């Protein structure tokens, strides 16, 4: 029951995010979708992922998008792609969703009984990150540092070219 509510909230937020005209309203709906997804993670027993979702997506990514919207002046011509390309896009999306839904419904692997709720305590996650997944953790740290420096370099004001 709770799952249905949060799933509906997530989908409603996502649909509003991509269909609203005003970009700021779009981001607010996106935050709703991210928060609904975090609630779904909590229901599924992944507490750490749920809180990480709220911290990273609601707290960082959404705020970053808001900053970008405020830094770029958006003229009023939203979604003015031609009717033909819009129709083609809708067709492709419906085909993709149909394929996914059909695959999920016809899969035999989903019919087995419910396993008990697995445990994912902070201690287990921390031990796994420090022992088994130590190298990927280092790599992701390096990637984030490089991405941060790269983003700052790209967005910096370029100096005037000297003749």
């Amino acid at each position, binding site marked *: 029951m709770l799952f249905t509510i949060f799933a509906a909230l997530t989908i409603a937020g996502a649909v509003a995010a991509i269909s609203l005209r005003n970009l700021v309203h779009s981001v607010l709906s996106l935050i709703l979708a991210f928060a609904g997804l975090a609630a779904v993670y909590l229901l599924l027993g992944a507490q750490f992922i749920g809180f990480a979702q709220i911290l990273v997506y609601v707290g960082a990514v959404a705020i970053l998008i808001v900053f970008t919207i405020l830094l770029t002046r958006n003229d009023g011509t939203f979604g003015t792609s031609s009717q033909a390309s819009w129709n083609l896009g809708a067709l492709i999306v419906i085909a*993709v969703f149909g394929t996914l839904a059909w695959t999920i419904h016809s899969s035999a692997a989903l019919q087995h009984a419910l396993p008990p709720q697995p445990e994912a305590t902070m201690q287990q996650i921390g031990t796994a990150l420090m022992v088994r997944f130590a190298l990927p953790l280092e790599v*992701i740290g390096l990637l984030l540092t490089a991405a941060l420096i790269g983003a700052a370099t790209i967005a910096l004001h370029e100096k005037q070219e000297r003749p």
Partner: protein
Amino acid sequence: MTPLSSCLMLSALLFSVGFAGVLMRRNAILILIGIELMLNAANLNFIAFWRYGSAPEALTGVMFVIFSIGVAAAEAAVGLALIISIYRHRKTTQIDRINSMRG
């Protein structure tokens, strides 16, 4: 529907909505929002298969999602920096007007 297949259906819907955003909108920021939604749908799949699959004590799904969130954060930062940089040169974020390299 079993809980696992309802999770997968939610994920498929979320992916389709994000995909629709990428294909049907012409604003670079909205396209990035669509990409974020698709990444989130993939994360939901990982968590669902960790919760209802076999051997959840290995925590593989949770670990994959942690790294995936990290990569998505890096992608969002670089993508938005690119959008700001393009806006500075072209004064627009509509992708059909960024076509100076068109043959």
